[in-house]
Structures are given as C-alpha cells and as structure tokens.
C-alpha cells in the first residue's frame, strides 16, 4: 500500500519544542526506562532540568540516545565504551569544524 496525503503533514522541530522525559526517550527509542537512566549515570546523556524527581532532557538527547544505542548494538560496546566513543566522536567533530573555520 502506498499512501500519500494531498495535504502535507506538518510537524514541529523537536529540538525547539518542550523538554523530553526519561519516559519520552524510552518510548521514542523503544528501550527500557532503566536503559536511559543507565545512559545518564554513565554520562552519555545529560539531564538539563529536574522537577520533582522527574528528569528533563533537551531535544538533542534523542539523536544522542539513538547514536548510543546504535553503538551498543552494532559495535557491541558496553556503557563505558559508548561514553568514550561518543566523547571521541564529538571531539573529532569539534576539531573538524575548527579546521574548516580556519580554512575559511
């Protein structure tokens, strides 16, 4: 079945809308809430706000969680390995941008 609506579907930019909870992230990435908590404890994800025991994340956390889960699954990394890999990937990205900015 191929379906295409005439009226385009409108959506908001996730990263500019409300903060995400542990429950949101677990549902969006189809993993246990415990898994998200483990990511926080290992420093893979960062809580930006705590309101009456509920943790809140920025929208960017979705991309990071997906990436972390992919690293776990594809490379069979443990949590510490995921945290290290993410840190190195970010450092690489930062240096690439700096290099590009210098070239420009």
């Amino acid at each position, binding site marked *: 079945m191929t379906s295409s609506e005439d*009226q385009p579907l409108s959506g908001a930019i996730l990263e500019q809308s409300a903060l995400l909870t542990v429950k949101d992230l677990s549902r969006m990435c189809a993993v246990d809430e415990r898994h998200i908590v483990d990511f926080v404890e290992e420093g893979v994800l960062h809580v930006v706000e705590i309101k009456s025991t509920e943790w809140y994340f920025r929208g960017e956390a979705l991309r990071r969680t997906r990436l972390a889960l992919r690293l776990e699954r594809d490379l069979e990394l443990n949590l510490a390995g995921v945290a290290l890999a993410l840190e190195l990937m970010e450092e690489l990205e930062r240096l690439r941008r700096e290099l590009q900015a210098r070239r420009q």
Partner: protein
Amino acid sequence: MLLDLDATLRGGARQLTLRVPEVDADGRLVSKERVLNVQVPKGILAGQNIRLAGQGERPPGEGTPGDLYIEVEFQPHPLYRVDGRDLFLDLPVAPWEAALGATVKTPTPTGTVDLKIPAGSHAGSKLRLRGRGIPASPPGDFYVILQIALPSADDDKAKAAYAAMAAALPFNPRANLGV
C-alpha cells in the same frame, strides 16, 4: 531524511518514502512502502528532528499510533556550504575588484544582493551578511569568502596589461618564504 538546502531556507513540502513492517493477510511480516508528504519547518538544521504526531507505528491490536521522528540532513548545495546555522559561499572576484574595492552581484539564499567589496581585500577575506544564513531562531549568518580569479593572458592585450603591472609593481609574492 536527506533534504535539499532550499527546504530549510524557504520551507515547503517534501516527499519521504518509509519502509514499514506490516503483517499481511496470511500473518506474515512484510515490508511495505509508505509515502509521506511532509511540510518541512523553515529553519530546521542538520541533525534536528521533525516530530509528526500520530504518524508512528501502530501498536499490535488496539492502540493509538506513536509519533514519527524524522532526522534531517542536507544534500550538498552547489553554491553554499552549511555549518550549523551559517552558510558559506566562495565568491570569485577580479584582482582589481579586491584591490580597489567594488560592488559586485552576489547570490544569497534570499536572492541576489549587491555586495560591497572593501578596497585592499585579499583571497580568503571573509565578509559577513548578518542574519542571511539558515532562518532558524536565532538566524544564522551568511559568509562570503573571496577568491581572486585571474584573467587569462591568452591575447596580446591581456599580456600587455600583465607586463605593465609587472613593470609598475615591485611585488614579490614569495617574500615571506625567504626567497
């Protein structure tokens, strides 16, 4: 979802084809194609997600479908490079335009503008047009990086002009190489 840069600069609808698992009449799991017509929010940046409420997978049995999150990346643009919310353009200018200053036509995402090149510019000089990058909030900037284009010296007139310049200017481009 791989988008053309125009989608974020102007907004607009783009088609997206998803492969979604479905259970057919015989109870087998098959992969079905689903085409969505998605309104791209103006100003979305690479790595950001469009959230489409109620367009996600439908859970087995009764239940409301979840949301669909589409992560956006950009295809390389023929003119502009993207860095976050900023755009970069390499703009070729003639040596005299860079040296003497000039006003030249420059393409920007919002149309052609007259750009003032300051006298004494050189290759790699960076000019910033504030707020003319990706229209996010806050909007990005548009950077023009000057490149000096040399006229070819394939006729006598051009050769004479180069020769006159060589005679008139005591110029050693390799001075800082110590030669």
